[in-house]
């Protein structure tokens, strides 16, 4: 949700129509109905590996997050701007991830309740550009950390 708010500020024009609502163009794959193929011009978050360190004052969890995005460019340029479009998404992702922390919120409550700690992460590791016909795609991986609080 933090990245979603940041993206809306960075590029309000990057949106996606999902379940009848126009939202900032970022979504968590597991929280939506399964896709036959990933949507273009949208950031898709996918959670991967998990690590836990229980030998601390508060248990720390580390979870790898993969952020996938792809584009065919724009119709007005006949897709010839797909390289620039992907670079724009690279730039937006770097901007979205800064600062490298956000307050931890409890979304089981409505409205979401602020917790005591912060979620934080490393710099992204970008993968190479993948080319599939006229589509360019890339993924970036970020290790996300958080502390377990009382009652969790």
């Amino acid at each position, binding site marked *: 949700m933090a990245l979603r708010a940041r993206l809306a500020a960075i590029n309000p024009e990057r949106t996606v129509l999902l379940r009848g609502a126009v939202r900032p163009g970022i979504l968590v794959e597991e929280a939506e109905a399964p896709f036959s193929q990933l949507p273009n011009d949208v950031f898709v978050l996918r959670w991967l590996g998990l690590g836990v360190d229980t030998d*601390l*004052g*508060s248990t*720390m969890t580390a979870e790898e997050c993969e952020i996938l995005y792809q584009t065919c460019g724009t119709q007005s340029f006949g897709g010839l701007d797909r390289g620039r479009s992907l670079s724009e998404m690279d730039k937006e992702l770097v901007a979205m991830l800064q600062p*490298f*922390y956000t307050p931890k919120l409890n979304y089981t409550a409505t409205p979401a309740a602020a917790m*005591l*700690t*912060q979620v*934080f992460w490393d710099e992204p590791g970008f993968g190479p550009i993948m080319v599939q016909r006229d589509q360019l795609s890339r993924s970036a991986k970020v290790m996300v*950390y958080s*502390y377990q*609080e*009382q009652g969790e």
Partner: protein
Amino acid sequence: MAANWFSAPAPVARRVRGYFAPVNRTAQTPVLFDPAEQGAFNLDAPPAPWISLGWIQEFTRKPASKTSSVLTGVPAATGSQVRETLEAQVSLQFLSWTKLTMALATGSQHMNLLAPASGAALAADGAQAATAVIPQTGSTATFVALASADAAKFAAGSIIALDVDYTGQTGFVGSPVAGAYVRQALTNVDYIRRVTFNVALVSQVNSTGLTLAEPLPGGAPAAGARLQAVTGFVDREGGSFYQEWSALFVMQGSQGERIFFHYPRLQTMASAEETAIPLSSKNPGGQARVLLKGQFLALPVTDPLDGERVVCYRSFLPAAQALV
């Protein structure tokens, strides 16, 4: 009102921020940092007179104080300990080359290469400079008012140095930072502007003067100050002057906690040295980032709280709601 809490593990920090402030060399007065009053400062806008030098890397603290045991009894056993010497060293790498980082990372005077006069004879630390111009009234820290003929001598993008003429004085010279110690009178009228830290980049020029991209460290030009263009910087291996600065290093933890290392007096202890870090680990012989390496010796101050002599203060501001 009740508060929740959590047990905070050891801080997790990405990098270290460095801030320096000039020691008043004449009065031998360092700049103090009060973590109780100033600890929550915006890391991008430190309280005056601290100057942010941005991120630094390879920050290493090396305590070098020697402690020895006082042995008593038969057989002898340590009854107590005494501190024989008080010493600490700090080393780091600056991630930028600026007037200040270069000066901090050199063992001696750091000089401005003043724009030369036409036809001046060559000199290793800059030829005789073009004549200085006089700021007019109405100048501020970010705008230097000039006569239109003088303003025409400068271009946007140029660097300027602004300080008083050298008139034969000895001792520490340069304002607001002592840039050198003059042991015997010199003859170069531009000497103080050669060593001054009062430099800035010109962002705009018009017929009324120069607009600066950053404020002059010394604020509005002082009476008697003059202005010259700077083409670059130079320092030397050798010399007898030691830079001395107050330093503050900050580690910001992932939960908002902060660790401060405050050295009231740091003197450069090594000559200028660079280290090259390849941009790509896959191509160690390729493009490399050249970093300035700083090595400092911490000098003592007497803490007025209890009269103890110390070289460093380490402070910790815990995360909100963290158990202590």
